[in-house]
């Protein structure tokens, strides 16, 4: 009975929980409630994954209105997989938040924080699960607006300008998406994705369709920080509170990539996107540019959060590269990297939050000597960094393996070289941090630091341990990603 409503509950529960978080007047209770809801969401995502992992598709009609008139939620392997990522990260970040925000956000804003986080979660889950193009826009805006709020909660006043900048760029992106959806509606008279998909092949030559495609690609490109539309990202991640960086950094761009994939493959169809529009030749150079450029910039950053933010831009480049290869292996690599990058960046930002909690800031030079002072925190950081580099036995290796195989399959060996060079660049920018932490002494005048509290360490290590677990036993992620990639190509191989 309840199972039937799972797709709806997955979004409705956090959406309703958001105002409740605000209405619970006690900060701590609000936190407990939010954490419980995040676990509930995670549990629901797991149940959904179990139901669809063998290729079944769940449909849910809101209010009993049959599509294409009503809003339909549909769950297949792909969005169940993304739901799992988003809710999984949420289930770790929410419990983590309590201790972390004590020092980073004034107490009067704690409930606002949980409310906004909950809204953001609801928006991201909704974007993932919805089968309705306009509904996707609305949920995108829900998650975006709440993330602007969350970023502006950062301690530094630059959080405000970063948030403002993100708001402007994000709204432009969302409006582009709105235009694209509008044009599609004008052409087909429907907003339901499945319905759109069935009507679009007949319209192939239409200019309007091409315009809609372009608007949607650019709009999602802005939201997912595709080079050179990534300018909002580094500041937003760098100045947001640590828990927010961890949550948004590991989920928001992933969901945008999911949405892009959904439009490219399901709505427009692989044939239109790649054979007619040839979008891969747009994505590939941009992916290459973002991998090289962002890795280069990351090497010269003083702030670790900013460094990781640039590294995120590079990692998004990997995901776009996988899409642009237009083969199943490449798409599998992209999907795996959604999962794996969420784990590594989430884990790294959480360890940074623990450092910020004890040290006060996260510049490279402030962490000198922390290897001894905070062994467990820095240990987590090292594992996360290895995963970012792509060392075997970590998840980073798994996705790179698929991406490299995909480039070889296509015979694009310069891209293979590119992936390898960028891995080496990752060695450079992460090793600078590790070396400072372990082989430089803490300055004599610096205050004494202790190991981070368990309430921060346990969530951080949960994600870091997941980096190792899924790096050694990748069955779950590879099965889901392969299944989703095959489903997206839908047997019609290019």
């Amino acid at each position: 009975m309840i199972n039937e409503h799972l797709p709806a509950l997955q979004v409705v529960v956090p959406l309703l929980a958001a105002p409740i978080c605000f209405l619970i007047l006690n900060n701590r209770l609000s936190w407990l409630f939010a954490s419980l809801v995040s676990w509930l969401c995670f549990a629901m995502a797991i149940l959904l994954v179990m139901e669809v992992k063998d290729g079944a598709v769940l449909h849910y009609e809101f209010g009993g209105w049959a599509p294409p008139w009503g809003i339909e939620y549909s769950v297949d392997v792909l969005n169940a997989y993304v739901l799992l990522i988003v809710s999984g990260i949420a289930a770790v970040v929410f419990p983590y938040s309590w201790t972390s925000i004590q020092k980073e956000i004034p107490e009067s804003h704690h409930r606002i924080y949980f409310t906004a986080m909950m809204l953001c979660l609801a928006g991201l889950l909704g974007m993932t699960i919805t089968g309705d193009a306009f509904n996707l826009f609305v949920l995108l805006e829900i998650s975006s607006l709440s993330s602007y709020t969350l970023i502006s909660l950062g301690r530094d006043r630059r959080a405000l300008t970063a948030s403002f900048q993100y708001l402007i760029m994000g709204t432009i992106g969302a409006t582009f998406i709105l235009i694209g959806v509008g044009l599609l509606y004008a052409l087909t008279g429907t907003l339901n994705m499945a319905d759109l998909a069935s009507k679009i092949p007949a319209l192939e030559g239409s200019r309007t369709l091409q315009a809609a495609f372009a608007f949607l690609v650019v709009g999602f490109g802005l939201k997912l920080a595709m080079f050179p539309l990534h300018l909002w990202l580094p500041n937003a991640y760098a100045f947001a509170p640590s828990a927010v960086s961890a949550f948004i950094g590991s989920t928001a761009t992933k969901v945008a990539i999911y949405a892009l994939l959904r439009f490219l493959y399901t709505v427009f169809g692989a044939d239109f996107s790649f054979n007619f529009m040839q979008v891969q030749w747009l994505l590939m150079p941009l992916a290459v540019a973002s991998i090289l450029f962002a890795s280069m910039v990351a090497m010269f950053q003083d702030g670790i959060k900013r460094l990781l933010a640039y590294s995120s831009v590079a990692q998004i480049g990997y995901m776009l590269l996988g899409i642009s290869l237009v083969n199943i292996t490449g798409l599998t690599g992209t999907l795996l990297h959604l999962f794996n990058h969420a784990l590594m960046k989430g884990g790294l930002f959480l360890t940074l939050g623990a450092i910020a909690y004890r040290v006060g800031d996260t510049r490279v030079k402030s962490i000198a000597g922390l290897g001894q002072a905070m062994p467990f925190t820095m240990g987590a950081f090292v594992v996360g960094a290895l995963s970012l580099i792509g060392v075997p036995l970590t998840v980073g290796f798994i996705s790179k393996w698929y991406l490299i195989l995909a480039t070889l399959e296509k015979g694009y060996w310069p891209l293979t070289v590119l992936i390898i060079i960028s891995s080496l660049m990752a060695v450079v920018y992460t090793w600078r941090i590790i070396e400072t932490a372990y082989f430089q002494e803490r300055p004599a005048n610096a205050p004494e630091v202790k190991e981070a509290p368990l309430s921060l360490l346990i969530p951080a290590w949960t994600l870091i341990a997941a980096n190792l677990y899924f790096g050694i036993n990748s069955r779950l992620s590879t099965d889901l990603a392969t299944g989703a990639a095959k489903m997206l190509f839908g047997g019609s191989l290019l």
Partner: protein
Amino acid sequence: MILDLYNYWVVIFLMMSGFYTLIASNHLIKKIVGLNIFQSSVFMLYISMGKVAGGTAPIAAEGIDTYSNPLPHVLILTAIVVGIATTSLALALVIRIKESYDTVQENEILELDRISDEETQA
């Protein structure tokens, strides 16, 4: 022929002027105004799209059989609400920025950030 599509010309004109204001203006409030014009142009696009020649408001009434398509109007009501939320959040941010930087000029804010950057470096 071109005039038949005049609604699109209006939309494009509004969109471009909004976009220009958004990019060219140095004043944060003016940026928000530009953003609003930009969004409004899209609202226009949707609303004009729903118009059916000779149709009336979609209210079932005796003797009328051509209605405008109500769905884009409904959609755009939602989008307007989203737009209002965005604008109010943006304005709230500008107030906070004004409080902490004592200016709403983008170049001055960047300059202040640069100065504080140099101070932390030193």
